[in-house]
């Protein structure tokens, strides 16, 4: 089976996971191990000046030698802030060019601001970044991002952190059918069946955070998500049977019944 390949690098898992909202780094690490993910997202924030500098660091729990660290621009509302954040991230990660661009539109919906997202993508691609981009599920703008040179487009399935699942499978299919770069559903997945549905649609991967971190048992949910993604991918490759809307088709032979 083909592996997920982003910017020429193949990854063992089609599940990408965030590192936010966990109780502590031990739980973060246990859940990520259970998910089987090789790409993990992180946020970039100011250090707390004055706080004990010997406190544990996320990247001690998730060493860049073992995981592909995907820095994000969560919390950025302008192209300029997103670009600045990712330049800091690249410095932090020793020049590693892979990044997750997200430019938000408003704090209630966390819906992407697409004009600013397109602007930031252009700058970052020109600057040598490999941009994986959170975007609306608009097939035209997803194509524009691909044409700018983004290495993956990542439409939302529903609002970030909402757990509402795949709300518009038709738009996702339009994006998938048109794309020549990986399409990764980013945001909205609530449980394993949502991940499977995304993969059955033909997505190349799924990125999630809250669905795992806010499950009652995050480690068990991480394992469920791994299986959901794998099951959905296999079902997509297997090709589902056609739907028959108005008639049944028995699975057992109609001939040889007793008493006939």
């Amino acid at each position, binding site marked *: 089976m083909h592996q997920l390949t982003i910017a020429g690098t193949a990854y063992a898992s089609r599940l990408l996971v*965030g*590192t*936010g*909202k*966990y109780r502590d780094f031990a739980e*973060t690490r246990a859940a990520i191990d259970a998910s089987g993910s090789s790409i993990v*997202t*992180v*946020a*970039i*924030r*100011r*250090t707390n*000046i004055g706080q004990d*500098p*010997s406190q544990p*660091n*996320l*990247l001690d729990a998730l060493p860049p030698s073992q995981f592909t*660290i995907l*820095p*994000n621009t*969560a919390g950025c509302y302008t192209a300029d802030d997103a670009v*600045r954040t990712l*330049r*800091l*991230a690249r*410095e*932090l*990660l020793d020049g590693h060019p892979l990044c997750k661009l997200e430019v938000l539109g408003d704090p209630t919906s966390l819906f992407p601001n697409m004009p600013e997202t397109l602007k930031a993508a252009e700058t970052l691609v020109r600057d040598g970044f490999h941009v994986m981009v959170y975007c609306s599920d608009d097939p035209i703008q997803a194509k524009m991002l691909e044409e700018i040179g983004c290495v993956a487009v990542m439409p939302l399935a529903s609002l*970030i*952190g909402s757990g509402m699942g795949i709300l518009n499978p038709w738009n996702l299919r339009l994006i998938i059918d048109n794309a020549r770069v990986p399409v990764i559903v980013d945001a909205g997945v609530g449980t394993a069946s949502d991940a499977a549905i995304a993969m059955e649609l033909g997505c190349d991967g799924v*990125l*999630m*955070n*809250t669905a795992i971190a806010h499950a009652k048992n995050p480690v068990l949910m991480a394992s469920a998500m791994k299986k959901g993604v794998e099951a959905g991918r296999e079902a997509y490759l297997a090709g589902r049977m056609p739907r028959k809307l108005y008639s049944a088709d028995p699975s057992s032979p109609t001939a040889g019944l007793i008493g006939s």
Partner: protein
Amino acid sequence: MLEIKINGEARQFPEALTVAELIALLGYTGKRIAVERNGEIVAKSQHGSTWLVSGDALEIVVAVGGG
């Protein structure tokens, strides 16, 4: 007197400092951080040779949990 802003907070230091010396004062030596000075990245290789001047605005960041 060196007067600079670090992560939005005004700070004063009695003598001239390089970025590397400031990082040491803050206890971040050897930590995975990145430094931006007046909107431009200061590469790790330049920390020792970059002198801070009064009025500089620094951002010092780390990776934290996020989605």
